[in-house]
């Protein structure tokens, strides 16, 4: 989209050094690029070494590949230049194929600054300029790897806060006279004791799962059988002598311990030094990371709301996280939520405070919500219990006639009270409100979420009624939006309430269609 093939007009004939608009990356990248290239060329190096040692002059071949990689890295620095123009940000790169990537400045949505450990050692930072949509790939965005840390910070400020001359004039109140003072106001800062919330996320289990998958795949590829591994055999032998419950208990305890360590480690690595600030130029900044530091920026004019979400585990310890609902920012998966994270798992009160601060008003975050009524409750119980009952009937029939073990039926029987509790919780958490021009919706049990969506961000309504909802006089009202998850639903409210809510949230839109 924003990529332009290098055209003759953009390929200035003179060398970049002679062109005042074009800059090079930081000179210290002359150290980083060769290291990166050598790492990338590692398989080739290995191949050269092996092939060479057979023919007797392995060192020479290895050195040749090494020199080529280093030369490539050095050439990268000499061939990459960038220019911050009045209308466009451009990067030229490529040794053989010259490419010019241009991003119009008014399309510019995000500027992310990342420093890997090697960067940090040398005082460098990588700048990624995105157009907002799905800008995680090299193709669409524009990446400067890397500039000096100060230069990167300056560039970010310049790109985001002086988006165009018109905007600079429209905001004359900016304190140009005191640029030295930090103009940002701090909204949140990570406190070390919040690490206690890390074990109550599932990130540790996910990490372990990924590790196990990785290791087993490697073992498969190497055709190693772990059962033939001596110490493991001995362990298995010992375990088989113990009673089953001891083994199970030990396994669960070990898993919990591992998951705790992994999640705490992940939390510290990702969120250490987390800081959320607001810049008067109209952006929110997030800074975080222990080894690799990341700074992401979110334009407030793209913000359509906030979300406070609590998983069931986090609810046990009264914790929650806070996310931004913004256009052009997909809600990602994983602990970082694709850049929309405004606060990592933290005390719930803190998550609410941050949400209110970002939104600029507290009522949507803290205010009371309207219950959805008896019809919604009945549907919660019917669904949960019907599911559990069908499962119980199936397992029971299997036990009676197919000889399934009895404990399976017992587990299915225990599913009934669990389903009951789930339904009760799901109903208790359902709620909505319209306050301060904000549509507030809360739902969910395993993950309870409270979304506050600015009514300006609502771009349509879907009013859905299934056959059973029509019989019960209920409807599900979905607000569609360009931000976040694209749609937010008020589930199972009385049909009249749904229409009234839609009418009040966007006055005038429904008027010609009302009876």
């Amino acid at each position, binding site marked *: 989209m924003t990529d332009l093939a290098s055209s003759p007009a953009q390929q200035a004939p003179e060398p970049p050094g002679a062109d005042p608009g074009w800059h090079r990356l930081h000179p210290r990248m002359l150290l980083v690029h060769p290291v990166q290239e050598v790492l990338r060329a590692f398989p080739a190096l290995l191949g050269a070494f092996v092939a060479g040692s057979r023919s007797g002059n392995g060192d020479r071949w290895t050195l040749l590949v090494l020199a080529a990689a280093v030369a490539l890295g050095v050439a990268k620095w000499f061939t990459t230049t960038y220019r911050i123009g009045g209308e466009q940000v451009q990067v030229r790169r490529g040794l053989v194929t010259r490419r010019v990537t241009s991003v119009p400045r008014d399309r510019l949505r995000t500027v992310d600054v990342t420093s890997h450990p090697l960067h940090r050692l040398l005082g460098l930072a990588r700048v990624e300029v995105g157009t907002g949509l799905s800008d995680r790939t090299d193709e669409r965005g524009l990446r400067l790897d890397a500039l000096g840390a100060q230069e990167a910070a300056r560039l970010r400020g310049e790109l985001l806060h002086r988006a165009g001359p018109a905007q600079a004039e429209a905001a004359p109140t900016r304190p140009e006279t005191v640029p030295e003072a930090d103009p940002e106001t701090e909204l949140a800062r990570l406190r070390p004791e919040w690490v206690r919330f890390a074990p109550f996320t599932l990130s540790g289990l996910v990490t372990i799962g990924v590790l196990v998958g990785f290791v087993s795949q490697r073992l498969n590829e190497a055709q190693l059988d772990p059962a033939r591994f001596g110490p493991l055999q001995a362990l298995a032998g010992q375990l088989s002598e113990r009673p089953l419950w001891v083994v199970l208990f030990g396994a669960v305890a070990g898993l919990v311990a591992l998951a705790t360590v992994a999640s705490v480690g992940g939390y510290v690595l990702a969120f250490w030094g987390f800081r959320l600030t607001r810049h008067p130029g109209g952006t929110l900044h997030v800074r975080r990371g222990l080894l690799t530091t990341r700074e992401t920026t979110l334009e407030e004019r793209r913000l359509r709301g906030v979300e406070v979400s609590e998983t069931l585990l986090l609810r046990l310890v009264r914790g929650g996280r806070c996310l931004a609902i913004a256009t052009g920012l997909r809600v990602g998966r994983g602990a970082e939520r694709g850049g929309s994270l405004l606060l990592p798992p933290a005390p719930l009160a803190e998550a609410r405070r941050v949400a209110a601060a970002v939104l600029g008003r507290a009522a949507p975050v803290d205010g009371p919500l309207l219950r959805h009524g008896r019809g919604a409750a009945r549907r919660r119980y019917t669904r949960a219990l019907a599911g559990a009952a069908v499962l119980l009937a199936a397992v029971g029939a299997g036990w009676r006639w197919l000889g399934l073990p009895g404990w399976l039926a017992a587990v299915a029987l225990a599913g009934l009270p669990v389903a009951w509790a789930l339904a009760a919780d799901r109903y208790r958490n359902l709620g909505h409100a319209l306050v301060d021009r904000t549509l507030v919706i809360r739902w969910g049990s395993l993950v309870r979420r409270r979304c506050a969506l600015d009514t300006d961000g609502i771009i*349509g309504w879907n009013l859905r009624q299934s056959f059973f909802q029509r019989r019960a006089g209920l409807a599900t009202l979905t607000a569609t939006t360009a931000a976040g998850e694209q749609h937010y639903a008020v589930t199972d409210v009385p049909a009249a309430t749904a229409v009234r809510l839609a009418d009040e949230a966007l006055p005038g839109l429904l008027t010609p269609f009302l009876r």
Partner: protein
Amino acid sequence: MQRAEPGGEEQGRGEQPAADEKPAATDLRPPRHRVSRMAIWYWTVRALLGWLVLAGGQLLWWALDPGNAGWHGSWLLVTVLVGGVHLLVMPRWRYAVHRWEATPHAVYTQSGWFSQERRIAPVSRIQTVDSERPPLEQLFGLADVTVTTASARGPLRIHALDADTAQRLVDELTASTSAGRDDAT
């Protein structure tokens, strides 16, 4: 988006619990226009094709396993009965439900049969207006109109309009949306 300013006359709207307020009107009327009458036949034929595939599969199985005539026959009978009821009920029910309306300010659709859905989008938030004529619809002289907004959820689809109406609607909507100014998010 002027979120920072306090909201003028709209400030505080909705602060009372909605249940207390006496509403002027709390019921949406259906959209004004029905879709083309040919839609009934179009939906019938489309559903029939699906049922024929299923019945054909059953016949094939019967041919490959000629033994259990009773078993195969009864399942085929079930398919024919359920399919027949579906073919009789669904298109007429759908025709009764499917409606649409476009004003200078909003597009309003109603669709579905067993589950029904009404969608409303302000014209100012419309991003694209497409009309489409799949082969089967061409046979019946029909066309679909799809109105998308910046949300990935919630395109408004008006199925089975007669082709002239569809063209007129597209022209009308294109004219009124081209007056918009921002990026409609």
